[in-house]
C-alpha cells in the first residue's frame, strides 16, 4: 500500500504499465511512460541540488510536463508548490520568496513574466525551462535535456508520510496569499476517500478542465494515479467546443466542474446533441451551483449521478459530499463528511452545537493541514487542540447541520468570497485599485451572478478632479491581478458608508445588494 503520494504512480505503473494515464491534446502517456518521465524530472532536480524538504515550484498549464513535474518533485524528496501560470511578476516574486523556492519549472513562453520576477528573489531559484530552448537572456536547465538523458532511478530521499508533499497558496483576508502545508499522509488519505465515494475504477476516463494548480484539479491527477484511470487534460476551458469534442471522442465517464464550467456547457447548442452517454458522474465544488442549472444538467445527463461537494485547501480540498441518492431530499446540503473525516458545527469556544444552530464548521481528520507555511499566528487561529489531543481545523465558514449530520453552508466569517470557484480577497483587489492615483476610496464585495457565482464588484470614490474610466480601471487590474480578481462591475459613488472611526462599512454595501453569501434557497451546495 502506498503511503507516499508518488507511490500511487509507481504502483499503478507496475500493475498496469500500458494503460493510458494522460491524454493532453495529441499527446498521450501510459502509466509506465509517466513513471519514467517523472524519474527523469526527479534526477534533474536532484542534480540541481534538490533534497528532502526543498521547495520546487511548478508554473505550467495543464500538461504532461505539469504532472511529470509534480511526481518528479515528490520522487526527488521535494515539496511541490503549484503556481498559476497567469500569475503576474510581482506576485510570482512574492510566492518564490515566501516559499523559499529552490527550483522553478516554467515554460519558456512565460519568460517575460518569469525573468523579471527572478531578478528580485534572494534565494536565486534555478529554472527548469519547458519549451523549445532557453529564452533570451535566461540561464538554467532544459526539460528536453532531462528527458534525453539515459533513464536512471532518482536517489531515494527517505521520505515518510509526515513529510510535506505540497504547499498550496490560498488567498486570505490580508490580501497576501498564505501557503497551506499538506503532507503525504494528507494526500494519500484524501485521495483514497475521494476515489472511494466517487466509486472510481480503472475504466474511468475523467475530463479535467480545472487548473491543476488548484486543489480540486490536482485531486483528479492524484486519484487517477491511485486508481489507474485515464485523465484527459485540457489546457483550459477557453475553447469549450473543442473540449466537448474531446469529451465525446474519449468517451469521458467523469466530469469534475465548477458552476462556470457547467453554465458554459449548458449554453452550448452542440452539447444538447453530443453523444455523451458514457458520462457516469459529474461533480461540483468550489461554489454553489444554481438550482436551475442542476435541474438542466440532470435532464441533459439522466444517466449520470451528481455529486455536490464542499471543501477548502486547508483540508486537502475535500470535507464533505452529498450522496447523489439524497440530492432530491436535501438539494441545499453539501452532504456529510467524507470517509475518515468528521465535521461538526461549534460555538466560539469550540463546543458542539445542537442541530439547526448556526456556528463555525470544525473539521477533524486525516485531511487537516499541518498549518500555514511560516505563519505561526495565523496557524494558531485556525488549528486548535481537540479533547483527544488531535488537531481541529476551524474553517471560518458558518454552517448548520441537521440531525442526520447533513451540512448546510450559511456564509463566511470574513470577507473572502468565491468567484468562478476561486477565492477572492477583497483586500487584494482593493490594494490594486488604490494604486490608481485617481482612486480615493475603494471597497470590493461579491454580488450574485449566474455565471461567476459571486462576481467581483468595486465601489469607488474618485479623488477630486480625477477622471476615472471603467475601462482604465479594468485595464490596470488586468495587468496586476489574475482574471478572476478583476472587477466585473464598477460603480462610482460620491462617498462610501463609514463607521464612527472612519472605516468603510463593507457590510452595509453587501446588505444593499442583498445577502449574496447565503446560497441555501436558490442554489445547490458546495461553496468550498
Amino acid at each position, binding site marked *: 500500500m502506498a503511503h507516499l503520494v508518488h507511490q500511487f504512480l509507481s504502483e499503478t505503473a507496475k500493475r498496469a504499465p500500458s494503460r493510458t494515464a494522460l491524454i493532453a491534446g495529441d499527446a498521450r502517456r501510459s502509466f509506465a511512460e509517466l513513471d519514467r518521465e517523472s524519474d527523469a524530472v526527479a534526477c534533474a532536480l536532484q542534480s540541481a541540488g534538490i533534497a528532502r524538504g526543498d521547495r520546487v515550484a511548478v508554473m505550467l*498549464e495543464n500538461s504532461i510536463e505539469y504532472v511529470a513535474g509534480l511526481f518528479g518533485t515528490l520522487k526527488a524528496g521535494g515539496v511541490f508548490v503549484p503556481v498559476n501560470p497567469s500569475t503576474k511578476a510581482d506576485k510570482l516574486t512574492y510566492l518564490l520568496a515566501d516559499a523559499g523556492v529552490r527550483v522553478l519549472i516554467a515554460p519558456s*513562453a*512565460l519568460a*517575460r513574466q518569469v525573468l523579471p520576477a527572478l531578478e528580485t528573489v534572494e534565494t536565486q531559484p534555478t529554472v527548469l525551462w519547458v519549451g523549445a530552448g532557453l529564452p533570451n537572456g535566461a540561464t538554467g536547465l532544459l526539460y528536453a535535456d532531462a528527458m534525453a538523458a539515459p533513464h536512471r532511478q532518482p536517489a531515494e530521499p527517505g521520505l515518510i508520510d509526515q513529510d510535506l508533499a505540497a504547499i498550496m497558496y490560498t488567498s486570505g483576508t490580508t490580501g497576501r496569499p498564505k501557503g497551506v502545508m499538506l503532507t503525504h499522509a494528507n494526500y494519500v488519505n484524501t485521495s483514497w476517500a475521494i476515489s472511494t465515494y466517487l466509486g472510481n475504477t480503472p475504466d474511468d476516463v475523467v475530463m479535467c478542465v480545472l487548473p491543476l494548480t488548484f486543489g480540486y484539479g490536482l485531486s483528479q491527477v492524484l486519484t487517477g494515479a491511485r486508481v489507474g484511470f485515464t485523465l484527459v487534460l485540457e*489546457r483550459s476551458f477557453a475553447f*469549450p467546443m473543442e473540449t466537448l469534442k474531446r469529451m465525446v471522442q474519449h468517451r469521458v465517464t467523469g466530469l469534475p466542474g465548477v458552476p462556470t464550467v457547467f453554465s458554459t456547457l449548458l449554453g452550448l447548442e*452542440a452539447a444538447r446533441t453530443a453523444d455523451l452517454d458514457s458520462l457516469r458522474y459529474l461533480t461540483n465544488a468550489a461554489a454553489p451551483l444554481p438550482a436551475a442549472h442542476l435541474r438542466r444538467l440532470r435532464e441533459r445527463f439522466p444517466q449520470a449521478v451528481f455529486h455536490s461537494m464542499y471543501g477548502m485547501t486547508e483540508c486537502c480540498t475535500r470535507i464533505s459530499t452529498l450522496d447523489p441518492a439524497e440530492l432530491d431530499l436535501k438539494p441545499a446540503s453539501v452532504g456529510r463528511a467524507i470517509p475518515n473525516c468528521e465535521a461538526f458545527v461549534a460555538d466560539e469556544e469550540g463546543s458542539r452545537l445542537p442541530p439547526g444552530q448556526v456556528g463555525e464548521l470544525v473539521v477533524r481528520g486525516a485531511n487537516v493541514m499541518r498549518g500555514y507555511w511560516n505563519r505561526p499566528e495565523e496557524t494558531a487561529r485556525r488549528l486548535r487542540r481537540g479533547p483527544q489531543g488531535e488537531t481541529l481545523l476551524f474553517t471560518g465558514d458558518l454552517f448548520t447541520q441537521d440531525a442526520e449530520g447533513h451540512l448546510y453552508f450559511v456564509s463566511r466569517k470574513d470577507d473572502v468570497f468565491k468567484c468562478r470557484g476561486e477565492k477572492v480577497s477583497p483586500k487584494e483587489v482593493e490594494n490594486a485599485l488604490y494604486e490608481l492615483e485617481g482612486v480615493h476610496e475603494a471597497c470590493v464585495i461579491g454580488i450574485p451572478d449566474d455565471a461567476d457565482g459571486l462576481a467581483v464588484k468595486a465601489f469607488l470614490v474618485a479623488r477630486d478632479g480625477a477622471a476615472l474610466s471603467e475601462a482604465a480601471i479594468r485595464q490596470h487590474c*488586468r*495587468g496586476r491581478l489574475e482574471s478572476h480578481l478583476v472587477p466585473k462591475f464598477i460603480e462610482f459613488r460620491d462617498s462610501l458608508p463609514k463607521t464612527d472611526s472612519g472605516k468603510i462599512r463593507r457590510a452595509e454595501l453587501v446588505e444593499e445588494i442583498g445577502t449574496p453569501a447565503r446560497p441555501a434557497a436558490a442554489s445547490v451546495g458546495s461553496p468550498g
Partner: protein
Amino acid sequence: MRTATLTDTTLTAPALPEIRAFIVENFLLGKDSGFDNSESLLESGIIDSTGIMHVVAFLEERFGIAVDDDDMVADNLESVDRIAAFVGRKQELRNAA
C-alpha cells in the same frame, strides 16, 4: 507545446494592427512587450480563457462579425495572426452574403 503557425493570409490581414493594439492596450497595460503575432496568446500568459471572451466581444463590436460557438476554437483565436485571418474570413463571408 503548441505554437500557432503562420497562415498565408497573415500579411494581408487589414484588421491585424487594430487587434494587436487592442490586446496591448487591454492586457499589457499599453506596453507592447514585442510578442510575436504568431505566438500563442494563452500559452504566453498574455490572455487567459476569460480574456478570450473580451477579445471576442471586441471583434464582434469593432468588425461587425458574429462569432458562433463553433468559431470558438484555437485555430481561430490562438494568436494575433489567427484572429486577424479569422476576422478576414468572417468579413468576406458577410460581404458575399
